[in-house]
């Protein structure tokens, strides 16, 4: 089997990109204290909306823009439930995923069997959106750690009572973080339909949204950690595909389990380290998953 390291790396970059976008978006939401399990639903919405827009206009970049908007719009359902109606975040996120999968399947029928418009190659033969994802890593890191707005966002996520007492709007901050997470998940989903698979099929995100959630845990809630996790996942995916192509004597179905098993394994290792380390919480924001209700 011939392995050209550069081409493998390019494949890895591409395989990691959907997860990278979704996980970066979820990272920002979780740093604001919101656990949104609707990533998969937002990704599939973006995958369809982006594909439809790219197909209709013939412009893939417009597709990504529409995907971001669609992801943000559908994430507002989650924001409405959790921020205004104070519903349980876990249940609301699940509802968003179930709803998104259904909605995309329902409106996706007319787009089955058509091809996405070709994407112009970016610098160094790497897709523009892959570049965008890579640039987002330092940008989000800097936003969270070096900007005033990021400081407020982290404050809201770490201790919402204190942030509220200081006069910051917990609800507004969280809604903005949810919208950003939705937009990023939308772009991630659209990367699958527009740039990788080049067509629309029902349920095509195949759990990528859930893997993104696991990668946020893996990253210990940091942007560079998210990149490492996405690359690890991309590596496993490429390796698995390479082994399939090489005709290894293992059934295809078993090989294709690899990304999911790897996710579980990574989750276990990271959770174990966090559980037995001296620092409690392992980097999870203090108010993660808890709703805030101001009594005054």
């Amino acid at each position, binding site marked *: 089997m011939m392995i050209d390291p550069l081409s493998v790396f390019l494949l890895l970059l591409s395989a990691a990109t959907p997860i990278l976008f979704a996980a970066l978006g979820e990272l920002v939401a979780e740093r604001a204290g919101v656990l949104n399990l609707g990533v998969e639903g937002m990704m599939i919405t973006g995958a369809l909306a982006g594909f439809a827009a790219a197909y209709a206009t013939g412009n893939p970049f417009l597709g990504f823009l529409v995907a971001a908007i669609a992801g943000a719009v559908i994430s507002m359902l989650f924001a409405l439930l959790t921020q205004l109606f104070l519903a349980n975040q876990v249940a609301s996120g699940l509802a968003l995923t179930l*709803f998104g999968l259904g909605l995309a399947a329902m409106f996706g029928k007319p787009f089955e069997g058509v091809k996405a418009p070709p994407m112009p190659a970016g610098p160094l033969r790497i897709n523009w959106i892959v570049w965008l994802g890579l640039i987002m890593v330092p940008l989000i890191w800097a936003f969270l750690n070096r900007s005033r707005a990021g400081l407020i966002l982290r404050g809201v996520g770490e201790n919402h009572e204190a942030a509220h007492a200081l006069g910051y709007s917990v609800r507004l901050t969280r809604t903005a973080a949810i919208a950003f997470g939705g937009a990023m998940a939308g772009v991630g989903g659209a990367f699958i339909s527009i740039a990788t698979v080049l067509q629309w099929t*029902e349920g095509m995100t195949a759990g990528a949204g859930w893997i993104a959630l696991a990668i946020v845990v893996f990253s210990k809630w940091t942007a560079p950690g998210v990149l490492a996790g996405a690359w690890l996942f991309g590596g496993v995916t490429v390796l698995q595909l390479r082994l399939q192509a090489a005709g290894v004597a293992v*059934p295809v179905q078993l090989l294709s389990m690899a990304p999911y098993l790897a996710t579980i394994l990574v989750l276990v290792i990271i959770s174990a380290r966090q559980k037995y380390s001296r620092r409690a919480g392992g980097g999870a924001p203090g108010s993660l998953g808890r709703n805030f209700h101001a009594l005054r």
Partner: protein
Amino acid sequence: MILLVPRQTASNGWQIATPVMAVLATMVTGGLLFAIMGYDPVAAIRTIFWDPLFGPAASYSRPQLLIKAAPLILIASGLAIGFRAGIWNIGAEGQYIIGAITGAAVALALYPLEAWWLFPLMVLAGLAGGWAWGMIPALLRNWFGASEILVSLMLVYVAQRVAAWMAFGPMRNPEGMGFPGSRNLQQYPSAANPELIAGTGAHWGVVAAAVAVLATWVLMSRHIRGFHIRAAGTAPRAARFAGVSPTTLVAFCLGLSGALAGAAGLFEVAGPAGQITDNLGTGYGFTAIIVAFLGRLHPVGILLAGLLLALTYIGGELAQLTMSLPAATVQVFQGMLLFFLLGFDLLTRFRIRRRVRA
């Protein structure tokens, strides 16, 4: 300005009223959605919610109600117990698939043996398979603190691939002329899960669902473990001080809900589905989450919610046939239902007051 005042205890009246409101709101919004898509909204809603029970084809679709509701009720009963304790088993779909596989494996291994004990043994194998698949996230959470939400979900994708592997590999019907899929258990009398009373759709899974409703009601309201579960869900710290072991609860809840989902899978594969195929997963495991919430995590509520969601499946199929509505409409309806329920739930937990200027 509107002010939300938290209630000391959840309002009983709203507990019952909100699911009804959610169903009505779903019908109205669904109707609007149909109108936008160019269908007659009134006809569509009637086709989904009325015709399966009382329409011209009701004699065919009514038995379907029990067939579809049984797995939903069975799975949701187990999930609700965990949800009450704050343990989120989201991977019932995977436990359902594995239960179907382990249960069918017994029948396929012993084929063509005819014995009265074969089917009970398959049920046990289905329970065990689902239990074991549910125990994976339980143990990983107890030993390493890994999120049971993510692990149980990842295992759904793994289970789907196990099913595909079985259908193409070890379990492929040797007389199937190379097509993927196992032998059809419906044509194997000792292993089949047939209709018990002709024309009702009731098979052993329906009986099991009824037993599950009763048993979970006894567990939750009459048994000390049910009290522990409710305590852990409402006041985890207090429960721990009272000697409730969180690790035991995690293992119990995930194991039990896994076993029930596994049994649902076995009843389905030995009955309505008939064989192991690569698309064994039908989404019951996910829909059961909606059933559990819509039923307010209460056995009786789950029974009613299971029947209602079964109705949306059958009505959706009917609407697909007669009005050529897209198949995914049902899923959208189910998602909307959960949205509305979670939204209206505000009323059970808060009083709404006009803010008075001081």
